[in-house]
């Protein structure tokens, strides 16, 4: 069966996320980060940040919601039962700080078949309230037996 590819290039509506200080702290604790820049406003400012700063991988918290509609889109047609998260890349720009309003858009970059597996590649771009890009994500999902 040929894999459906008509969703390549499709974009989905943006989502907006306001970064909160305690949410940054919650994330930081789970991954074992204890630097005061993730918990304390004065420490973050002393280190040159606008406010309490998020760890880089906190980007999943504010960017993943934009990917939801893409993943569940019938035009994409991924078989979730056979899907694994195969690869991930993030490129960071301006740091995400408490109070930032981050808007994320998502797009389907590629769908292709290789060795009997379907590869579904999505891109998210997250921009803060000043128009600065905070992170660009490339998400690769692999579906077995397409």
């Amino acid at each position, binding site marked *: 069966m040929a894999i459906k590819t008509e969703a390549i290039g499709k974009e989905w509506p943006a989502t907006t996320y306001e970064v909160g200080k305690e*949410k940054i702290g*919650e*994330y930081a*604790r*789970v*991954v*074992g*980060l204890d*630097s005061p*820049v*993730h918990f304390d406003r004065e420490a973050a400012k002393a*280190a*040159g*940040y606008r406010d309490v*700063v*998020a*760890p*880089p*991988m906190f980007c*999943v*918290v504010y960017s*993943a*919601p934009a990917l939801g509609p893409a993943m569940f889109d019938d035009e994409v047609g991924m078989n979730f*039962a056979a899907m*694994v*998260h*195969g*690869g*991930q*890349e*993030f*490129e*960071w720009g301006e*740091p995400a700080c408490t109070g930032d309003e981050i808007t994320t858009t998502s797009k389907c970059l590629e769908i292709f078949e290789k060795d009997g597996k379907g590869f579904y590649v999505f891109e998210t771009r997250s921009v803060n309230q000043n128009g600065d890009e905070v992170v660009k994500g*490339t998400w690769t999902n692999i579906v077995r037996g397409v």
Partner: protein
Amino acid sequence: MAELNVGDQIAELRMTPDKYLPHRYAGASGDFNPIHIDPEFAKAVGLPNTILHGLFMMGLVARASTEVAGGDPGALKRLSVQFRGMGAPETEIVVTGTVKSVEGDRAVIDTVAAQGDNQTIRNAEAEVQA
């Protein structure tokens, strides 16, 4: 950033996620996929038990990578990983890395996250700026 040279090993990161860590990561990240938190569901879809979130392990790789810049979160400019083996709770994760290239104030570090012989993340490439 301490002087980095090609071939240098970064400081090893070791962490043993406890039984409830996937629940806390689910809450922190918003990813409540039941394969990470519900053993019955995980077994019903053919997994040995609940598995760790891949993005949690990527978070550990990010943490190990920023340590070379004194833990400054702004130092990590890019991180690319491939998820391979599945990670299990209550098993020690070891993140290791080797400096692959250095150009000006940026270094590229090859990293691996493993539980014993099971490499859960490999071909990870972190770009760190001083």
